[in-house]
């Protein structure tokens, strides 16, 4: 029961971070700020959700897969953030020149 409540709290917190991420995406002034808001938010939101679902998971196989998913999302989110930032920086560089 306590485990359930803990899981629920974690998941709800994760959802809150998603909401925050969206708000950041909508409200922040330029691309890099938005990127900042987004990667923080979906990194944390995803992490918390994963943690919560792990607590609810039934078997070791499921836990392993959830962790794998978390790892994959985190890695791809990081690399994508990097690539987009690079893209944006280069784009602004060419404009300034």
């Amino acid at each position: 029961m306590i485990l359930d409540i803990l899981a629920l709290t974690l998941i709800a917190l994760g959802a809150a971070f998603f909401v925050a991420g969206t708000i950041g995406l909508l409200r922040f002034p330029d691309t890099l700020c938005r990127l900042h808001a987004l990667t923080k938010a979906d990194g944390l939101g995803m992490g918390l959700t994963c943690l919560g679902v792990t607590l609810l998971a039934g078997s070791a196989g499921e836990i392993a897969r959830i962790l794998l998913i978390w790892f994959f999302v985190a890695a791809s989110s990081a690399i994508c953030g990097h690539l987009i930032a690079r893209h944006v920086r280069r784009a602004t560089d060419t404009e300034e020149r």
Partner: protein
Amino acid sequence: MSTALSITLIVILLSILGGLIRILRGPSPAERMLAAQLFGTASVAMLLILSHLMAMPALLDVALVFALLAAVTLVCFVVLAEEERR
């Protein structure tokens, strides 16, 4: 318990639908791609929750593919956008 989880699901869905505005407004492709990234991650989160709610562990595989696909599309976007500038 399941009601609370369902409500969380609805909250996440609503939040990413808000992100749609960013895609429609742009202005630059990078921002649109960022919003798409958010959609991808949030969908994975929703799938994780759904896999518990619907008692279907197989959804974890779907989530895995979602994660993978988001990465591939993004790389595709970045590569093509880089080429375009040359």
